[in-house]
């Protein structure tokens, strides 16, 4: 019986259905991607002579990384490093305060329409430009030094934390807010009793993460004169002191590792 059955049913092949069902669209995308890759890759100019020259420098660089020199420029490194740390602390603290205000204002479920629009716009503007561009403008306005750097970091902290806080508030469990509202609580009481407990752990985690980001950023904005370890780093590059460069980079990496370790411990205790 089974034999006759096998004869009568046609062979059914099975293939995994492709991600994009429409075959024409699928092939257009594949071919388009391939063409793009060819064009993009061919626009990269590679100067072989320069690469050979670079090989020699790479050797020096790697030698520097393998034997970092903390000693020769230690006083510069120390000053830059501490300045970066101070900038990070100040910018993160003020950034957090400002982002709480703006985050509350930019949460659709808490703020009135005009307040929402204003706060969202401020957050959008502070996120739009790269830190380096903001730093260039602030250095032009406030002069060289860590003050311009702190202002830059505050702006990008607010853009980052404010937006994420607002999004977090928009997804809280609303019934707790309603319950507190129905007891006759004021707006501020609603926020402190029903909103804060719900968003606090995540906001704390994000703030710690931002502390870490601010430290890393402080190493970058120094390139355009906004103070911190970045200034020291640029100087070392300009003098071709790659062993000092390596020392600074290693310290940054160590600092980031330490920050992540501390942050993960704090997070474990709070959650």
């Amino acid at each position: 019986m089974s034999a006759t059955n096998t004869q009568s049913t046609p062979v059914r092949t099975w293939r995994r259905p492709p991600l994009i069902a429409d075959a024409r669209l699928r092939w257009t995308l594949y071919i388009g991607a391939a063409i793009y890759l060819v064009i993009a890759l061919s626009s990269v100019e590679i100067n072989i002579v320069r690469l050979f020259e670079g090989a020699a420098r790479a050797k020096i660089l790697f030698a520097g990384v393998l034997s970092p020199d903390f000693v020769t420029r230690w006083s510069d490194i120390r000053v830059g490093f501490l300045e970066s740390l101070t900038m990070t602390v100040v910018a993160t603290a003020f950034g957090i305060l400002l982002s709480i205000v703006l985050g509350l204002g930019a949460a659709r479920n808490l703020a009135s329409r005009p307040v929402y629009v204003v706060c969202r716009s401020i957050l959008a503007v502070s996120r739009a430009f790269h830190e380096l561009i903001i730093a260039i403008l602030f250095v032009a306005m406030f002069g060289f030094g860590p003050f311009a750097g702190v202002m830059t970091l505050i702006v990008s902290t607010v853009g980052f934390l404010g937006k994420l806080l607002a999004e977090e508030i928009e997804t809280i469990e609303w019934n707790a807010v309603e319950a507190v509202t129905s007891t006759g609580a004021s707006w501020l009481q609603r926020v402190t009793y029903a909103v804060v407990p719900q968003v606090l752990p995540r906001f704390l985690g994000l703030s710690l993460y931002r502390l870490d980001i601010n430290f890393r950023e402080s190493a970058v904005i120094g390139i355009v004169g906004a103070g911190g370890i970045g200034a020291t780093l640029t100087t070392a590059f300009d003098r071709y002191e790659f062993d000092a460069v390596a020392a600074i980079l290693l310290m940054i990496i160590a600092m980031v590792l330490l920050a992540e370790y501390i942050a993960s411990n704090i997070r474990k205790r709070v959650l």
Partner: protein
Amino acid sequence: MLEIQALSKRYGSFAALDDVTLSIGEGELVALIGPSGAGKSTLIRCVNRLVEPTGGNVVLKGTNLTTLSRSALRFERRRIGMIFQDYALVNRLTVMENVLSGRLGYVGFLRSLVRRFPQADVDEAFRLLARVGLEGLHDRRADALSGGQRQRVGIARALLQSPQLLLVDEPTASLDPRTARQIMRLVSELCRERGLAAIINIHDVPLARSFTDRIIGLAAGKIVFNGAPDALNDEVLTTIYGDEDWSQTTQSDAAEEEEVAA
């Protein structure tokens, strides 16, 4: 004590509540029954204006709640306690903090921020916790409790407001039958002790019949029944919920009651 006059609520062209008029007397327990989407939640939320009604009046002891300003409304909300289906506790706060949040309308912002409530409020909170059967659990986090326990916290919070009216939105819908009955009994006992009036939204018809003084049936935003629990027969249930075999539901609940008590 509570007069609801020609209350309506429209969402666009859809009428969630259509010309609802009813009044509730001092110390009266009223069950509001009706199928899902009938407008039960909308009705009780219009009373304390968690939902803004689009027409009609709600008058509580001579005060028209529908025309009040924001700040005056806050003041009046203290007189109206609310209990929710999904408990609506703040999960990361302790039981005590959740219960004390019932006093927020009486306490200034800074005091509430640092959790320094007047000692009398704290004493009352301890008393209520004992009364609802949560003695000693005041430091537990709300999310570490069972469903029945959470609803008891919700009840204590609402009562700490010293309300004159209780709005109860499906207090038992997320609970098992035995706990549901216990919670309904607790709510009705507490109302009787304090002479509180209450509107209780409830799915469960037998529960409504055994614990309330009057039953109001709502269907598609309109009142279709308003009378004593005994008057609720198959015919009425059919107008409220649609056609079904109601013989099980309308039987006396005495048997069930004994079973639970055992």
